């Protein structure tokens, strides 16, 4: 089960509101490579993992991603505090504002609402872990792109932290895939689907 701890994984303290920046960063809340999809992907894939190493890693990384979802939500909230009408009218935030005001809604920066179609659970451990490697890379690039577009150090410190986590997770998924392979037929790791055939 899950228990809520009343703290963030890494501090989020943003001095200056910036609705334009919020309209970009919202993608890591509910976009195609965002933290909501990440947590759902890993916490859902773990059920079909046949071995303990992958059950443990997917549980641990999936749980951390929920913490990242909360951090991204905190960024959006703090970037959209106490806005003046003129700040909303003149910014790329206006289309989001008309639908969600200053609420935090899982959507891509493009306006496409969160879709489970942006993640996959194939039910085959090699296929799912390979998807996870790609997912971490795509999230890393999204954070790269946010760093290109943002010059607020209060925001960027948090983004750099989140970006670095994608690299660490990529490393662990790669290692976990190797641990999985070592338990399969070395001549042909695709001989069967270990989720259902052993």
């Amino acid at each position: 089960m899950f228990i809520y701890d009343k703290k963030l994984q890494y501090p989020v303290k943003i001095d200056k509101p910036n609705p334009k920046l919020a309209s970009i960063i919202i993608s890591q809340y509910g976009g195609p490579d965002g933290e909501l999809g990440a947590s759902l992907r890993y916490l859902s894939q773990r059920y079909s993992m046949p071995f303990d190493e992958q059950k443990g890693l997917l549980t641990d990384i999936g749980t951390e991603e929920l913490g990242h979802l909360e951090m991204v939500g905190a960024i959006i909230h703090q970037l959209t505090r106490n806005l003046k009408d003129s700040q909303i009218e003149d910014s790329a935030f206006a289309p989001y504002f008309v639908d969600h005001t200053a609420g935090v809604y899982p959507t891509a920066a493009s306006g496409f609402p969160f879709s489970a179609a942006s993640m996959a659970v194939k039910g085959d451990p090699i296929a799912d872990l390979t998807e996870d490697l790609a997912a971490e890379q795509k999230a890393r690039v999204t954070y790269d792109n946010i760093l290109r577009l943002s010059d607020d150090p209060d925001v960027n410190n948090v983004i750099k932290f989140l970006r670095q986590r994608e690299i660490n997770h990529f490393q662990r998924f790669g290692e976990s895939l190797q641990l999985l392979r070592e338990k399969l037929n070395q001549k042909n790791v695709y001989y069967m689907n270990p989720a259902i055939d052993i």
Partner: protein
Amino acid sequence: MNKEDRNMGEGRLPAMAPLANPYVPFQLDNPAKYEPRTALVRGTLFAGLDLPFMGMVNKQEQPVTPTTQLQVISFAIQELALYLDTHQNDKEAFELYTQMQCLYEEAKKEFENQNGPMNHFSVNNNKTYKWLNDPWPWEYAKNKEV
């Protein structure tokens, strides 16, 4: 292995690797580690995995408070947990993980003395229900008041 010989950013690949498979080099045991407070700032406990974008290194030291102290310890435990998930026989990492768990209890106590209960399972030393009291983690006091 002495500190100087520790793996900084190299890994191990299988000697004879089956074709048509993706490989990530396996991080060697006992890799070089940052101090826990640096690890939180950099987003990784492991120096070899610290790969910033366009030289944008996070150097923003966090003030030493009960909250950041708990975040520092929690993060070290999280990093060691993920590492141990793929390196369960690394004795040094397991020892550090155990040490950090002991420090966590103390850090949690300090955090709760300042902020109130961390979760509903915290031992209650208060006369009244404090869960609803500030601070909520996603709010920043400085921009809270209108």
